[in-house]
């Protein structure tokens, strides 16, 4: 594994987006993973439609039928992959733009830009997560967002952050080996996370989170997706 790795430097990550006042982080995390997987397989970066997922996806978790994708009311990235495999794929952002509100489903299968072939969850091990990140592209992850409400910058390494309350879907795009921690008086490794709250939040829309301790449940809900170019 490389010591430092960042898919942004390789051109595999679209601009930071903004979900607005809508609980659709799960849709942004899903499209981010699909955008990255498409980039890895084709070398082309496309911005894909979250609104399609917000409007059309009502898939439920196979193990918990109450955990269903529900527009601005929340959802799961793994449910969204299931929906995409069944629906035929994702349209581009420009053909199905984001509005921040749930509307009628306007998905047009003829406009599909990227098809989802399969997906997988990643083992609860930070080295495995890093290896899959490097191999498959940016990964959809869930975390506990409690410290993100007040985050401005730097490497977040909270002393206490519950691993259980995973409530926010984001995109893991890379990792670094040396982020300075004042408390521990040393350089600590960290994850580079793309958020969907616009560029004015955090470090130009990005969050750096301490790596190595499953901080805020970052290891607990990680998934990768495999895509195919629409013919």
């Amino acid at each position, binding site marked *: 594994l490389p010591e430092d790795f960042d898919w942004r430097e390789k051109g595999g990550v679209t601009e930071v987006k903004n979900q607005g006042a809508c609980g659709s982080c799960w849709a942004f995390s899903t499209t981010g993973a699909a955008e990255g997987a498409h980039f890895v397989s084709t070398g082309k970066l496309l911005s894909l439609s979250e609104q399609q997922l917000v409007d059309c996806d009502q898939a439920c978790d196979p193990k918990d039928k109450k955990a*269903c994708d529900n527009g601005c009311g929340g959802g799961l990235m*793994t449910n969204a992959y299931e929906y995409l495999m069944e629906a035929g794929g994702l349209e581009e952002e420009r053909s199905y733009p984001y509005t921040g509100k749930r509307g009628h489903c306007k998905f047009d299968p003829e406009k599909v830009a990227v098809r989802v072939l399969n997906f997988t969850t990643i083992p609860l091990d930070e080295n495995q997560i890093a290896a899959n990140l490097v191999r498959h592209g940016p990964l959809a992850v869930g975390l506990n967002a409690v410290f993100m409400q007040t985050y401005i910058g730097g490497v977040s390494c909270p002393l206490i952050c519950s691993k259980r309350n995973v409530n926010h879907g984001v995109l893991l795009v890379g990792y670094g080996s040396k982020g300075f921690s004042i408390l521990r008086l040393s350089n600590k490794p960290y994850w580079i996370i793309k958020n969907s709250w616009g560029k004015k939040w955090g470090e130009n829309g990005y969050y750096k989170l301490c790596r190595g301790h499953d901080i805020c449940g970052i290891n607990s809900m990680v998934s990768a997706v495999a895509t195919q170019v629409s013919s």
Partner: protein
Amino acid sequence: VEDLTIRQVTADNRRIRPNLLGTHTESKFRLFMSDYGKNYSTREEYIHRLGIFAKNVLKAAEHQMMDPSAVHGVTQFSDLTEEEFKRMYTGVADVGGSRGGTVGAEAPMVEVDG
């Protein structure tokens, strides 16, 4: 005539807090409003959000103590309660601590030693 039998003695989150008006906190709140283009339709709403903002400034200070390698402070979410913030800006469905997804779909282990 005031009913002396039942009388509210607990804090009401929507109660007007005139003690924050004219303070340094209100100056910071006005700066926050201008930075993030915030507007409140009524005076009552303004004072309500000012109260939340004051609490969130304290929360940011607590977060700073608990997370010293990051910088915490006023953000675009500083006028929201924690419940509002979670409802409007997060959105991963509650799966009770499980991982979600199809059984048996876990990726094979990759060799990472060295």
